[in-house]
């Protein structure tokens, strides 16, 4: 991609015009999840230099990676059972795209794939990564390899599951171009926003090719009492467990004392 950008930049030099540039900043460097967290909105502000009327802007916000297992339901003995697992390594737990126009109008799918934009491409990679991992350890599993059509159903399932929780979203007109080459994108973080590191990539597309890009990052983290409890539960699980039991016993005893006398 760098090579391509360099190439694009060198082509631009032939024209007596400044090389296009793009800059971006998020309204938050960290988003804190507190006890009243029910989702929030992030605004990404940006500026471009050399923006022309045909140029388009694409903003991608990508959350932390997670490993997934996707299973297809099969009916056996009359009930639906999870079967036929496919595994994925490093699927973003959050992924949203905002753009000035629908993506398919901005660039061909080949151009998007080349620049790693779009969830389908990431899923193909995540699946390949897992397959490589498995082959490194041992020979691939004995059950028959799924065909391309089958696999695309698994990819679609991951996207559906994410979309249900608003973790995967696309806003085809979510980027507003303001005066003087400034732009603004609104990105929604749903109630189930996972904690971790996020990166926002902004791309300036001209004639179906990215001619400039910039990335910025932020963190989503638990804060306040939520963080204290979470870290306690994971840092000292045994003491946490004992405390949970003690608290419950105390609550039961208090209830008996309060209501028992009447």
């Amino acid at each position, binding site marked *: 991609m760098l090579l391509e950008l360099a190439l694009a930049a060198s082509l631009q030099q032939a024209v007596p015009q400044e090389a296009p540039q793009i800059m971006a900043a998020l309204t938050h460097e960290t988003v804190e999840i507190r006890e009243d967290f029910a989702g929030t909105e992030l605004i990404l502000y940006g500026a471009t230099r050399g923006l022309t009327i045909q140029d388009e802007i694409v903003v991608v916000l990508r959350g932390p990676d*997670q490993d997934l297992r996707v299973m297809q339901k099969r009916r056996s003995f009359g009930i639906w059972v999870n079967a036929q697992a496919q595994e994925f390594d490093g699927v973003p737990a959050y992924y949203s795209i905002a753009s000035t126009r629908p993506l398919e109008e901005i660039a061909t799918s080949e151009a998007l794939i080349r620049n790693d934009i779009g969830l389908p491409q990431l899923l193909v990679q995540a699946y390949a990564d897992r397959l490589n991992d498995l082959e490194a350890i041992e020979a691939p599993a004995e059950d028959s390899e799924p065909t391309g059509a089958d696999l695309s159903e698994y990819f679609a399932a991951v996207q559906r599951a994410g979309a249900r929780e608003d973790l995967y979203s696309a806003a085809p007109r979510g980027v507003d171009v303001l005066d003087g080459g400034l732009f603004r994108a609104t990105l929604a973080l749903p109630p189930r926003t996972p904690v971790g590191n996020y990166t926002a990539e902004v791309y300036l597309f001209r004639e179906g090719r990215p001619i400039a890009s910039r990335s910025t990052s932020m963190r989503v983290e638990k804060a306040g009492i939520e963080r204290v409890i979470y870290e306690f539960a994971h840092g000292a699980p045994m003491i946490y467990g004992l405390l949970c039991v003690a608290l419950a016993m105390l*609550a039961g005893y208090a209830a008996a004392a309060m209501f028992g006398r009447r």
Partner: protein
Amino acid sequence: MQIYLPIAEISVNIFLLLGLGAGVGFLSGMFGVGGGFLMTPMLMFIGIPPAVAVSTEANQIVASSASGALAHWRRRTLDPKMGGLLLIGGSAGSIFGVQLFSFLRGLGQIDLIISLSYVSFLGIIGGLMLIESVRAIMRRRQPEERREGGRGGHRKRTWIDALPFKMRFPRSGLYISVIPPIAIGFFVGTLAAIMGVGGGFVMVPAMIYILRMPTNVVVGTSLFQILFVTGLTTFLQASQNQTVDVVLAMLLTVGGVVGAQFGARAGRHVKGEELRALLAFMVLAVCLKLGWDLVVTPSDMFVVLPRGGEVGH
């Protein structure tokens, strides 16, 4: 008002949780059951991950059984020796159940096993309870002299009496083998870990019909065993799977304690047999709902699960 649960990692309405606690507490106070079999499916229904629902419900049952067990301890309507044996089996069962839970979660089959366990146990127990209470209601309508007909005489000898390692249980007035109590305890402990229930609905009938304990010590002894087994389950789930959400447990407990008081008062106005029949219908309704969900064609033919022990998505 939304509250973000730190371990379940979702945001839920606080009044929904308090109301759920109070509603299930009301029913459990009215019927004298733990209510875990209602609460765990409800928690999953509102979107709490199954692993967190099961572990957290075990924690709430600690609170709800503590006050009951305490009351029975004071009234001496509790057989500590029998409770101790049940507890030995229960502890082993709980440890086994938590391991099994982790293993099944790794396979991606935990939801199915939880549902299947619910359907089969609720179906059997609900069905038996319904038959029993309908018979009792019918009997009550019959003339006085025929009512006592089936009772009396010596207790029949069963295969239970043939087992070795016999022990005396003065409080229950029994002289039986230690194997059945330990086996029942183990079984109930495993259920507690997998289903997020106290297991009273299995243990009480088992104590009456298999161990033939006198009914006045059955409930107290059952609560005693449930208190310790759910306590151990909570501890194990917290230390091994980090799936106990203390905020969720406390909210449910606050609602549950208040609900149970009103439920207990409401229960006094209903006759025992009718109460049992009502409870049987409720158990069967939960069973049918869960069974229906297993059979009906799912809206999404795929499930996306996190890999490697992480909770959520």
